[in-house]
């Protein structure tokens, strides 16, 4: 057996040029599949991360909140409730938010706004809100009073975007129908990446929001965003939370909250499978051609080996070993080249120009072409291409092991 492996290894390097042409197909298949996957998965992962950063892996709220996001569907957050959720494994953090639609008025103009009451530190950790401040200052602590207003909304309200001073009136209703009417100093203007949010969002601190929207029921929250350490535990954690909490609450995974994204992921996955299958098919045919040519070229050599006493099964084994080696070497080289290429772009995402940047921004993403890089994608593609390269050589090799003296040297 060892000798067969040795012979195969030597054969592989005997005619380098021939081996390289076969391996080149394998290398190309690995590179194309990996680049395509990376390009497809990069933006999707960005979308997923973005969604998770905003709403958490799992969102806990009053039952029905997701369908009707009214301030009256808020929940008082007790320490017991948090502790109950924290008993689940893998929970990293729970972020509390209180959100409400209110009118903002500067006297001159009035417009509806979606007001987010956030913990300044948590919000900044998750969505880097502080870097979106284009004038004024981000919150420094929970006790800060003041409002950050999205750029387009601020412009409509005629807020000066250089000094961004002044105050706005918040008007509307809070929890349990109480009336809300007060003035808040303008703390700053934030540029939201999504045009929709840029027209409607504003931010105050959670403590401030709780005082304004719900002075009688303390610690009110619209949602609890649960962040977990290990993404793969999400289903278990969700089941655990649902089992522990009464049916007054709902606990939804990010892809249940954002079904549109789930659909998009699915659609892209389908497109990916189709395209990659075609790549495999084409490159596979190329490989088949190379292996077949290789075998046909070595017809004489194979027949001589047989006549020198090598059994047909040993010939088959030796040629297969050769093909496996060539697959292994090809896949390794392909992975190496892809790793360098993708690694570079992973670290240096390609900035996008106007139009595409706009599309990205409408999805609330940074206008860069991001590449995905993870060990699983390498393992997956390597195994697939390697299997194809081996499976594809079975027929030519089986065919070769049947060569006989008479029809070769006639």
């Amino acid at each position: 057996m060892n000798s067969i492996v040795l012979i195969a290894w030597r054969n592989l390097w005997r005619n380098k040029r021939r081996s390289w042409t076969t391996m080149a197909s394998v290398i190309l298949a690995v590179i194309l599949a990996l680049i395509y996957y990376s390009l497809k998965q990069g933006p999707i992962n960005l979308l997923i991360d973005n969604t998770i950063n905003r709403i958490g892996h799992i969102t806990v709220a009053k039952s029905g909140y997701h369908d009707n996001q009214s301030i009256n569907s808020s929940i008082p957050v007790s320490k017991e409730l948090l502790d109950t959720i924290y008993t689940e494994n893998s929970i990293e953090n729970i972020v509390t938010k209180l959100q409400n639609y209110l009118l903002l008025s500067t006297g001159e103009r009035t417009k509806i706004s979606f007001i987010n009451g956030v913990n300044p530190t948590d919000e900044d950790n998750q969505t880097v809100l502080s870097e979106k401040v284009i004038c004024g200052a981000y919150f420094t602590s929970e006790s800060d009073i003041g409002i950050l207003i999205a750029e387009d909304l601020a412009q409509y309200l005629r807020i000066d975007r250089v000094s961004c001073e002044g105050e706005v009136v918040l008007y509307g209703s809070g929890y349990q129908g109480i009336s809300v009417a007060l003035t808040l100093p303008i703390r700053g203007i934030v540029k939201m990446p999504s045009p929709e949010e840029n027209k409607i969002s504003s931010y105050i601190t959670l403590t401030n929001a709780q005082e304004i929207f719900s002075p009688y029921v303390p610690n009110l929250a619209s949602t609890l965003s649960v962040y977990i350490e290990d993404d793969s535990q999400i289903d278990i954690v969700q089941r655990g939370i649902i089992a522990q909490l009464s049916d007054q609450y709902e606990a939804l995974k990010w892809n249940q909250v954002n079904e549109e994204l789930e659909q998009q992921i699915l659609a892209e996955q389908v497109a990916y499978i189709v395209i990659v299958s075609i790549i495999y098919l084409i490159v596979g045919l190329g490989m088949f051609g190379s292996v077949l040519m290789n075998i046909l070229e070595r017809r004489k050599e194979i027949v001589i080996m047989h006549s020198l006493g090598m059994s047909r099964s040993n010939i088959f084994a030796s040629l297969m070993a050769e093909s496996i080696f060539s697959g292994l070497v090809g896949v390794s080289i392909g992975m190496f080249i892809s790793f360098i290429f993708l690694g570079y772009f992973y670290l240096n995402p390609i900035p996008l120009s106007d139009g595409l940047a706009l599309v990205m921004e409408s999805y609330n993403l940074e206008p860069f072409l991001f590449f995905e890089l993870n060990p699983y994608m390498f393992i997956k593609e390597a195994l697939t291409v390697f299997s194809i390269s081996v499976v594809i050589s079975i027929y030519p090799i089986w065919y070769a092991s049947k060569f006989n003296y008479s029809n070769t040297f006639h």
Partner: protein
Amino acid sequence: MKKIVLSYIFSFLFISANGIASEDITPIEVLNRSYDNQLGKNSISELKMTIVRPQWQRELTLKSWSYGRDYYLIYILSPARDKGQVFLKRENNLWNWIPNINRSIKIPSSMMSGSWMGSDFSNNDLVRERTYVNDYNSKFLDDETKQGFDSYKIELIAKETAPVIWSKIEVWVDKEHFNVVQADFFNEDNEVISRQEMSDFKYFSDSFLPGIVTITPLKDEGHSTVIETINIEFDLDDIDEEMFSIQRMKNIRP
């Protein structure tokens, strides 16, 4: 002639008035009698509104001034947090004066469909004037006894072009005092969507009126709004149209 001011404040509530029943009265006359009678000069009243929800309830006390059909003011007496807020209705517009920020806000059309102070009426219900007599075709159904009152039962079918959402209203009017006892509001599938029930009838000065009005949106279980009349006076000398201005709204005191 006695009037109740509820109808000014929550204008979709039914109007009632004491009067003398005649034998051959038409449904329009029954409604007109309530309706015409309420167009008095002015009134002052004090009300308690309770908003009932499955998990909580909330109480507000209000003082209200009215002048004709188009003008009224509501001053919030309690809870303490909202004390001093004033709502002014002038014709089709609604303003809100908020003393703690020293501002008056005209409720924009985008907020008109929102709930008023968390109750089961919208801002719209406050502002829009309903002319039942003009918007519906009416006929008598068989008399019924409601809450011990021998009542006319009147069916109102919305006219094709009338800007009202209800397809049909059934209303019970006490034959003796011409008070509305109950009103049911239907959608086009003939389901009752909303119900008003009057109860605790008693004399306020010399008017026999319902002390409590309960509004129940039947699709939302456990939801209702209860309005209790604490006190009501009619035809006072010191109420005139000038009182109902944005300027005066800021200075009104209970």
